[in-house]
């Protein structure tokens, strides 16, 4: 076990708490930087998707994991990011302009979706966000003059500062840079007043507001930020698939996105990335497994069934997600042989003041 001795306030502000963390994250970054030299074309493509989904995961983690709100409509923001990027690129704007615009537009729409969150909670909010997803999907399908309707839009590879980001490696580095920046932004937010206000809202709205947190401002801000992250991911996604159409941004996609945070571990930044990796890799594992399964099981519905089962399984057996599982395993080794079951159980809070609900 490692004991940290606190010698100054600045210590709490550090992103890395001790040398071990610097070493391991340094190694991870080195491996990620080296990946294009070691990984084949197919693997690179998977890595692109993992990074793009990680950015969505970070946005959703901010909203679901740290602010305690729910959204079953994030595919809509992915769509806004993707379509903005496609339309602006077609009008000749460079990526470093179109990307911020995609983020801002998604963010603005996220702010709008945040408004019902001021009145709705839990399941009702989920339904409102779900309806929002359907509206955006319908609009993209019907507004043919702008979006090309169901025949979709094509994108060219990104070109910036004379560099072609169409190659596997260059696009990968672009995605990696944006993912790392997103992680840093989220970590910065969480060690600042705004991030703490989000956590306060998650844990007790009533006392957050008694501490001076304006619930309306911060809830809508959380939706807006979350949507902006997703918009950035949407812009990258559009280039990754190079052809976008409304059926890529359906409810099912939204559910896949929320799966990222639930599998990864609600409330952990690591969870966003782990969850994204899992959501991308699982379909591959399923298609490998199909070769060994009898043909009547290995139908096209298998993936949806496995996804559903995994989701339910995690909610029931490992609500802390993959990252929570890792924390438990690590603690088990650190404390061996003194690990107790239930050390990570989230305790029921003492009598909550019901009259104030």
């Amino acid at each position, binding site marked *: 076990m490692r004991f940290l001795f606190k010698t100054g306030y600045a210590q709490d502000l550090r992103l890395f708490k001790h040398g071990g963390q610097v070493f391991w994250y340094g190694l991870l970054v080195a491996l990620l930087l080296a990946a294009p030299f070691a990984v084949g074309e197919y693997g690179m493509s998977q890595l692109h998707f993992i990074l793009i989904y990680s950015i969505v995961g970070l946005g959703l983690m901010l909203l679901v994991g740290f602010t305690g709100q729910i959204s079953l409509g994030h595919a809509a923001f992915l769509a806004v990011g993707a379509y903005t990027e496609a339309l602006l690129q077609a009008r000749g704007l460079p990526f470093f302009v179109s990307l911020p615009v995609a983020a801002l537009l998604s963010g603005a729409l996220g702010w709008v979706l945040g408004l019902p969150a001021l009145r709705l909670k839990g399941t009702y909010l989920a339904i409102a966000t779900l309806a929002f997803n359907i509206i955006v999907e319908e609009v993209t399908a019907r507004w043919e003059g702008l979006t090309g309707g169901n025949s979709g839009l094509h994108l060219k590879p990104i070109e910036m500062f004379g560099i072609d980001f169409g190659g596997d490696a260059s696009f990968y580095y672009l995605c990696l840079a944006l993912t790392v920046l997103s992680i840093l932004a989220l970590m910065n937010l969480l060690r600042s007043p705004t991030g703490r206000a989000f956590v306060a809202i998650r844990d*007790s709205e009533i006392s957050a507001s008694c501490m001076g947190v304006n619930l309306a401002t911060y809830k809508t801000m959380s939706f807006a930020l979350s949507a902006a992250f997703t918009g950035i991911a949407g812009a990258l996604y559009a280039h990754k698939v190079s052809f976008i159409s409304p059926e890529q941004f359906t409810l099912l996609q939204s559910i896949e996105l929320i799966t990222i945070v639930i599998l990864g571990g609600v409330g952990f930044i690591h969870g966003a990335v782990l969850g994204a990796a899992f959501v991308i890799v699982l379909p591959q594992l399923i298609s490998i497994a199909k070769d060994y399964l009898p043909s009547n099981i290995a139908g096209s519905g298998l993936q949806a069934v496995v996804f559903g089962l995994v989701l339910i399984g995690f909610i029931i057996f490992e609500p802390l997600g993959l990252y929570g599982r890792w924390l438990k395993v690590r603690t088990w080794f650190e404390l061996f042989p003194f690990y107790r079951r239930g050390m990570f159980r989230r305790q029921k809070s003492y009598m909550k003041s019901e009259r104030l609900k």
Partner: protein
Amino acid sequence: MSFFKVDNLGIRFGGVVAVDKVSFEVKRGECYTIIGPNGAGKTTIFNLIGLLYPATSGRIFLEDRELTGFSPHQVADLGIARTFQNIELFEHATVLQNLLIGRHRHRKTSLWQELIFTGATRRAELAQREAVEKVIDFLDLAKVRDSLVAGLPYGVRKVVELGRALATEPKLLLLDEPSSGLNPEETDDMAFWIEDIKRHLGVTVLMVEHDMNLVSRVSDRVLALNLGSAIAEGTPAEVQAHPAVIEAYLGKAA
């Protein structure tokens, strides 16, 4: 100029008149306590001061400024902090984070500065931590500063909640039953802290409390409430000896 004044305050929930035409005034620097049997309307008065419920009648003033028309989060900005009878902490955050949320009204940085964590943000954060660290020292919370609230015993949570309210640097501190659920030693510590808050930090305290020992020890004046109405006001000894108060607690002598 009066420091804090409640004038003719009232609220009804359907048929229940929870608070009925209550008026009182708290002087700067004193500890004013509201007592009364269960269901007397004490917590409801706090919720009315916090603007969590719209009052049916009456007005509330802090330093001659009327609170009506503000929203709940602005009450904190005006300098009123509170604790809850049943503890409302941020469960899945550490003690330090809980206290830092108390600093929310003193934040100075914008979202954009925070996203890239500028030098100004770092300086502001260090200043916040210094302020919080003073509260941690004052309430002797150093041992638990990095523990998650969810794992702490009840007595410690009560202190953390007091600390969070203090971290806001309030002018007026509302304490809803600070000693409930505490053992005698913890209650003793609590009494000591309340005296210190009043005397050394110069914070005015408005408290709801059942433990008459604690009340007599720390309060300057006491208001007794029964069924939503004020029945007696005065020094702790006067109020305790008041016939209407004895009757409210013990029932009419047969």
